[in-house]
């Protein structure tokens, strides 16, 4: 009988890989396989209702690349991602800072800001649809009560449109306003947790040194919260890039396609028996998402 002798070090390595194997298998099965399959489906004219497919090469990918509607959806997705990242960073951090500085009032603000997080995007979308409604919406009611438009006209400014969601110049703004109202609370909590993780002695020493709030934040707090900020940015970018339900309910991508986003664009093609084309869109989304992640990692590494 021949016994295989395996060195202890090699045994450990094998054991590590064996332990990793189930995770890798699951990762391959539920992530890599769908990605590869999605990429290949994008090469077909494929309705999605059966396994019947017609190979058309890169036509879907080429059509998407030159489609102005895709460019528009991509542009809107980027605008939403950038604005959400900035607003939710600034507002979320400010709220967390105020909550730390003025504990009683601040914690009330923090709790109130957190309420929207427990609501689904669909509920939020419906609620804000009524809020923006041109006939019975609360927003117009407030504007009417305060004679906002009269005041604006008096100083020579144009009136605020009755329907923010339907007006081409304000539709995307209405989406951004709602998305940020929904999102700020979560980031305030994340930053608040980050601020609490900083030792009280550091706050005391900043006080002793006589630093202003801005100096404290810029010179001490931000460098110490780098990992928290990075995490929050990853979350907000991922959430904004995949935004779907809110836009679907609030504007449906309209008026026309002015507030269209990539996931909505994809959905429309899938619902009209163009699963091959939709798969190609999904692959573009993946590539763009990966690029964003890579840029972010590079940025973080440089910072470190």
């Amino acid at each position: 009988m021949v016994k295989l002798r395996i060195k202890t070090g090699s045994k450990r390595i094998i054991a590590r890989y064996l332990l990793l194997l189930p995770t890798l298998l699951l990762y391959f099965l539920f992530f890599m396989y769908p990605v590869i399959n999605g990429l290949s489906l994008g090469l077909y004219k494929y309705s999605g209702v059966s396994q019947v497919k017609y190979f058309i090469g890169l036509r879907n990918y080429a059509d998407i690349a030159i489609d102005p509607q895709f460019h528009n959806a991509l542009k809107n997705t980027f605008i939403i991602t950038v604005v959400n990242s900035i607003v939710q960073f600034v507002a979320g951090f400010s709220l967390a800072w105020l909550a730390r500085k003025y504990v009683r009032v601040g914690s009330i603000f923090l709790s109130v800001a957190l309420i929207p997080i427990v609501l689904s995007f669909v509920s939020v979308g419906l609620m804000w649809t009524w809020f923006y409604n041109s006939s019975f919406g609360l927003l117009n009611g407030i504007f009417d009560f305060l004679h906002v438009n009269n005041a604006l006209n008096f100083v020579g400014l144009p009136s605020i449109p009755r329907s923010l969601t339907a007006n081409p110049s304000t539709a995307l703004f209405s989406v951004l306003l709602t998305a940020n109202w929904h999102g700020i609370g979560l980031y305030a909590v994340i930053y608040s947790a980050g601020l609490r993780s900083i030792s009280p002695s550091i706050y005391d020493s900043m006080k002793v040194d006589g630093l202003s709030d801005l100096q404290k934040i810029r010179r001490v707090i931000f460098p110490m919260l780098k990992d928290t900020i990075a995490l929050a940015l990853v979350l907000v970018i991922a959430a904004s890039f995949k935004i779907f339900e809110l836009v679907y309910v609030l504007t449906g991508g309209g008026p026309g396609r002015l507030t269209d986003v990539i996931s909505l664009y994809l959905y429309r093609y899938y619902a009209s028996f163009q699963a091959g084309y939709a798969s190609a869109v999904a692959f573009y989304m993946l590539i763009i998402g990966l690029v964003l992640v890579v840029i972010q990692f590079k940025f973080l590494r440089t910072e470190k």
Partner: protein
Amino acid sequence: MQRKYLYATTAIVVIVIAALAAYWAWQMQPTTKTLDFWAPFSGEQATTDFWGNVSEAYKNQTGNTIRISMYSGDEFFTKLTTALGSGSPPDLFVTYGGGELDTYVNESAVADISNLYTESWAQSQIGAGVKDAITRNGKQYALPYELQTDWLFINRKVFENANVTIPTMDTGWTWDQFIAASNKIKAAGIAPVAMSGADSWSLSFPACYIHERANGANAFKDALTRTTNFTDSYTKAYSQLKQWVDGDYFQTGWATTHFYDAYQYFQAGNAAMFIQGTWAVGMVSNNANMTLDVVQWPYLPDQPTANKVIFGSSTNIAVAAASTHKNEAEEFLRFISKPEWQVKYAKDTTGPLAQTVTLPSGTYPSTMNTVLTAITNTPTLILRYGTMAPKDLGATIDEQNLLVFTGQKSPADAAAAIEAKAVQVLGPVH
């Protein structure tokens, strides 16, 4: 050694017990079946209630359960596509025919139910027109249930208050008369037309009519068969559509208003007209304060009014090819076609029946009777273009309608986009 035997004996006993339990469970499983039925009628309470009642009655008679799932339009197609593609579709599902049914048939996703059509009830109840709509290569693939047509609905009170005369169904309006009436209503401070721009399917109703009135009933079919292109006819139609939109005849915020909100706006008396399918009659029937009237879409001045064309589509029920309960599914289709259920459907939902069944007087509200009489006097009933075309081309047409309506594309560019898609899907013009 003894321990080994003990383990082995225990294992054998466990396996035998498990096998016996499985056999017992198999023996005990009910002989009745559960069938899934998916429909895109979410939010339509009367319709949902009807299907609930009919499935309960079917269960009482056969013991088989019909599990009904109601979805909204987009959600329905997304879920159905996924279910069909994964090989686990519902046993029965709704189809609007046209290009959608073509896809199901070409990809063997629906069962051939031609045998139903040889039965006497089907021969007497299902007319040639609706049968043709679900026939492919001489075989039938669905059961027509409802025939919805598109009309210009009128809130009589608003017209009377604005002192605008409502034309009769026979005389109708010319385009100029329609615009003049709209201007008068607008001057009275009411939106002439309630429009739902958030639902591109609803924009297809006026878009189809404008295309037909501008180019004739055969222009679209000719372009589909590639004897002509879509560019010329759509450029002409979209130019007129743009003029209409630029006249500002819709309610504020129409571009992001959904169908149901537009309907609410109309029935509350905030808009004078509503271009919709006949389902609007049923919806309005719950409002005792409203008197509904109906006219055909206006004609262009040089069009003879005798050349009447109405758009619409039939709602059909198909059996999935992958269903393991095809016999029961067909039995259910027979069951719902019984005259008593057809009458109940008409009464409960006010939905116009696709099958020919004698209805007791007073089944429908008077507006529906006007519509049904008009249909009988109409020589041509055309499937909505977005439905008639292959589904991918249909989606492009609906999309271009939306973009022209909202001023995001010029008529010429939108028409060119339709033609480009048609070349891709159907090939170049012969």
